[in-house]
């Protein structure tokens, strides 16, 4: 077992079934485009900027922030994660649709790592639903105190017997929580 690392904060986002469909489906669908990314709602933007060491930045003029994140469970693998600004004070993690030509789906969030997946020809959210894990899906990015990033995900309901002081407690939220940042302190 590798030496355990000290974590500073964990950024996480509750992936909704509609988003799951958007990042799994064919990138060109009849009737227009649609989002090929994971959105960061405006309520989560200040915490996200803080997490990315861009505290207080004006999101309307924000340049693309790219971090290199290793894969939780396979630390020798890594991939970039691009945070883009989006109108309305929102942000997005860009190019997460796995079928788009320039896809940059992070290697922690792929089927080979156990990330849920829907068939390539899935046509709508309803068709994607049976492939969406019961109990939900969350992606997370952990930042070590040294400033290194690790990406991973959780799926399904909170495991039985998990104690409230477990740092993964919030990664299995109850109810409609969009996401957040877990501070080690």
């Amino acid at each position, binding site marked *: 077992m590798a030496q*355990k690392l*000290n974590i500073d904060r*964990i950024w996480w986002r509750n992936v909704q079934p509609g988003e799951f469909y958007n990042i799994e489906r064919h990138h060109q669908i009849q009737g227009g485009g649609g989002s090929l990314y994971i959105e960061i709602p405006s309520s989560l933007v200040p915490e996200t900027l803080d997490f990315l060491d861009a505290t207080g930045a004006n999101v309307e003029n924000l340049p693309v922030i790219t971090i290199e994140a290793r894969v939780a*469970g396979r630390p020798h693998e890594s991939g970039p994660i691009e945070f883009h600004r989006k109108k309305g004070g929102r942000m997005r993690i860009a190019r997460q649709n796995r079928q788009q030509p320039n896809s940059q789906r992070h290697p922690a969030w792929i089927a080979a790592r156990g990330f849920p997946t829907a068939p390539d020809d899935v046509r709508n959210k309803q068709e994607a639903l049976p492939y969406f894990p019961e109990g939900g899906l969350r992606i997370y990015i952990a930042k070590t105190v040294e400033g290194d990033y*690790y990406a991973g995900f959780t799926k399904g309901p909170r495991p039985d017997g998990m104690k409230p*002081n*477990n740092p*993964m407690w919030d990664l299995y939220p109850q109810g409609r929580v969009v996401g957040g940042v877990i501070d080690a*302190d």
Partner: protein
Amino acid sequence: MADKIDDVLSSWGAGRNALLYGPPATGKTRLVSELFQALNTPPESNRGILFDPDDTEAPFSRPEQEITIPQPIKVVWTTFHQSYGYEDFVLGLRPEISAEGTRLQHWAGVFLDAALELADPESQYKSVVIFIDEINRGNAARIFGEFMTFLDFDYRDGGSVPLPLPLRQLTYVDGQSEEIRRPGGKVATIPEGFTFPKHVYIVSTMNSVDRAAVPIDSALARRFDRIEMRPELDVLADHWELDRDAIPVPTEDNWETLTPYEAAYLLLDRLNVAIASDLGPEFELGHGLLTPMLATRTAADGTAQPVEEKEAWRSLAKIWDDVLFPQLEDRYSGRPEQLMDLLHVDTAPPAGDYAWRLRTAKGGTVEARTLAPIRVSELDIDVVKRSFRWLTR
């Protein structure tokens, strides 16, 4: 609970003793017991996150709680009471009978023995922790004597003004005291100018309600960090697996639908608000009074099965009769009108029998304003349900 353990360890780390105080059944003794375990097997901390980069399923964990005092730690328990004295805690005399006759021999009490333990070159221990239960049941000035000074870490070895032990009752020859007997058959002597060792830590408990106990001596009090133990409704919610956000506010429309656990939770909440307002928060009822309320029963196959609702109501009624109501009676002693108000005696439910009512004489000629004696657990189940549900409002 882990937060409170953090608080105690943090007090010790800062060279202060800790005093846990609060009403009965708020988890003081339980905390001391968990602390005792923590000193042997450090539990997970509530702060800090560790990450195992090779683990996919559960990569995050908490670091072990840091034990801030040197280990290994010797742990000693003692309980103060009205007959507890200086001889038990510091230094006493006991008769020793031999062929030459009877002579009095010095015996180390709990506190001095802790100091002698750390001064013993053969000891394996680096710290001693003394748990004192019910610290306000003894006479602190009589128990601590001049050793009250050594509760303060400043006057110990390594402190800012270390003082020699002032044990004038001992005779010193060639710079060494006469022999002092210790528990376990050991014998020790003290060199002249001996200073009290640094690593003797105390955690004590004090019941804030008990009228039989004296208020804590101010000289003693200022040498302890006070850690308040309050009734915590969340403990009940967790114990009964209630979603605390889903517990309804009792209203005209929903009070008759409350489950026994919701009723018990809301009942304690209401009683404590009333008690805090009438008597002060130190008189509130601890959550531990309600934790014995049955939630599950072990089935024949060994699995835990939820109890039937009727059984849960009966269990609440029994706890009310045997524990809660006697505590209320005690707190509202001499305030019968306030107690009757609290029990809604004059504002009973609009329909149906209600547990608490005024006492009447058979002849009907005496005008009384006193509560009729009642054991709720002996009433019809519908009356039990109606009464507790009504009492939550």
